[in-house]
């Protein structure tokens, strides 16, 4: 523990607070704060997954909300059919099936869209990932079976062994542990040989290709891993809100995710979570004052990003880090 960096300690501290505070509030009758924390932690997982691409891969994906939507519909659609009949193949409340669907469909979507998007770079990559995200958005908007634009209410949550997702405490517990695992996973990947190649290609792709790395496939692999993690966050979000709609996939949602990562500090472990915390708390506080909260909210975020270059984590960094 002696060689822990200052940011390392801050990360531990932040995670400890997230472990203790929300359950404390819930037990003292403030369910609202627990709700807020659950949303924060779930979006934190999505932001952590995006950070793998954006922060460490230099790949600015503007369509990540699609994965959240796919993961949520992987809960909603089987659950809907289990209640109302039809589509026997997947009609089920079984959470393991939902999970496999959420992660599997996300992986497939990432593989196909990534294979195409990664042929481009820079702003073209941003545009094309956004276009694929919007395709998913319009697809679900057009699916009248699932109420299209109006969205779908999930009557029965995923049934999992050991955890009961109807319990806010248990749902939070699962989300929190998932976030911790996601962070560890990304950290491990980033430090691995694979991670070195990914980061090298972010900095100097030509050099990496000259060394003999087919960076296209390394990036595609990162894209698929990130998509799967984000789809998993969608699985949790569906179970949390119990209401899902195409709006979850809208490009503005992808933009929010990107904002969280950049605001908190990309290519840091805690940055995405810090970013999503500030984002969600600001949104909550401002919207309680006035219904015209979008403008000050946007301005404050832009101000934060401009004045805290490198993200909020920058403020905590020790010397020489």
């Amino acid at each position, binding site marked *: 523990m002696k060689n822990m960096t200052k940011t390392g300690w801050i990360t531990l501290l932040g995670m400890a607070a997230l472990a203790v505070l929300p359950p404390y509030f819930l037990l003292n009758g403030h369910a609202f704060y627990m709700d807020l924390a659950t949303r924060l932690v779930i979006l934190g997982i999505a932001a952590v997954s995006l950070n793998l691409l954006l922060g460490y891969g230099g790949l600015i994906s503007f369509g990540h909300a699609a994965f959240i939507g796919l993961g949520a519909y992987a809960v909603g659609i089987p659950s809907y059919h289990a209640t109302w009949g039809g589509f026997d193949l997947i009609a089920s409340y079984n959470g393991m099936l939902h999970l496999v669907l959420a992660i599997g469909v996300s992986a497939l979507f990432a593989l196909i869209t990534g294979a195409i998007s990664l042929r481009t770079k820079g702003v073209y990559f941003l545009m094309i990932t956004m276009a694929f995200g919007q395709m998913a958005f319009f697809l679900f908007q057009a699916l009248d079976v699932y109420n299209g634009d109006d969205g779908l209410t999930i009557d029965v949550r995923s049934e999992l062994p050991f955890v009961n997702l109807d319990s806010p405490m248990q749902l939070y517990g699962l989300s929190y542990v998932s976030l911790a695992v996601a962070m560890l996973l990304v950290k*491990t*990947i980033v*430090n*691995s*040989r*694979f*991670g*070195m*190649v990914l*980061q*090298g290609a972010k*900095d*100097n792709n*030509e*050099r*990496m*290709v*000259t*060394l*003999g*790395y*087919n*960076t296209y496939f*390394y990036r595609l*692999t990162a894209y698929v891993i990130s998509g799967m993690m984000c789809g998993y966050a969608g699985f949790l979000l569906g179970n949390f809100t119990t209401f899902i709609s195409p709006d979850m996939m809208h490009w503005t949602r992808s933009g929010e995710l990107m904002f969280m990562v950049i605001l908190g500090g990309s290519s840091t472990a805690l940055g995405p979570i810090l970013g999503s915390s500030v984002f969600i708390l600001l949104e909550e506080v401002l919207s309680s004052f006035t219904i015209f909260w979008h403008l000050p909210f946007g301005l404050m975020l832009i101000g934060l990003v401009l004045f805290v270059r490198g993200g909020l984590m920058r403020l905590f960094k020790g010397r020489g880090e």
Partner: protein
Amino acid sequence: MKPLLEVKGLMKSFGGVRATDNVHLDLAKGEIHAIIGPNGAGKTTLISQLSGGLQPDAGTVLLNGADITNMPAYKRAKLGITRSFQITSLVMGMSVLDNVALAVQANDGHSYKFLKPARSICHIRDKAMENLAKVGLRKRADDLASALSHGEHRQMEIAIALASEAELMLLDEPMAGLGPKESALLVDFLKELKGQRTILLIEHDMDAVFALADRISVLVYGRIIATSLPDEIRNNDDVRHAYLGEE
């Protein structure tokens, strides 16, 4: 003996500029072959086509007799071709050692390995350190690449080329921007490599070229106007006229 690399009828134009104009060239195993020529002659363009960074308009490139003309750069690297860059091209956000370790790692099987921390893998780190030591950068191993001087960056380029263990090294003006002392060190160093690696050396420093090269080709306006032994090049009238600047 069959040459390691054969280039036949290579052509490359940018708009109206013929950067490579019907170039024929062969490199024998173990030879140091220098290419000299004025700025804009097409030397860098030629190297890029050999390393796979640029696609020629016409012509063929053979490595050990196999056609690699359309092979992507990363595959050529796997076959043992490496290049250094005239304009330093490093992973600036990583440490000096990381940069060289990436070159070692590239030859150590695939890198779809997600669990072990890359910086804890001894055989890769040791080998990277060995190559850093060879160019005299051992002490700077843990510094960020961006913190090093221009001269040290040039040394890093060489350490990376060495670490990649390529049979064929394409060096694009490795002495550019080095002081006389650093240049002399690099010349000695390349001399030691002679025979172990095949080197295509692009260089403006004529002392270095004549000290190292087994053969010299002169490139002017994309065309090779002469390929000969150093002494013959020195006495070739066309070359003196076109390049060495003597009437």
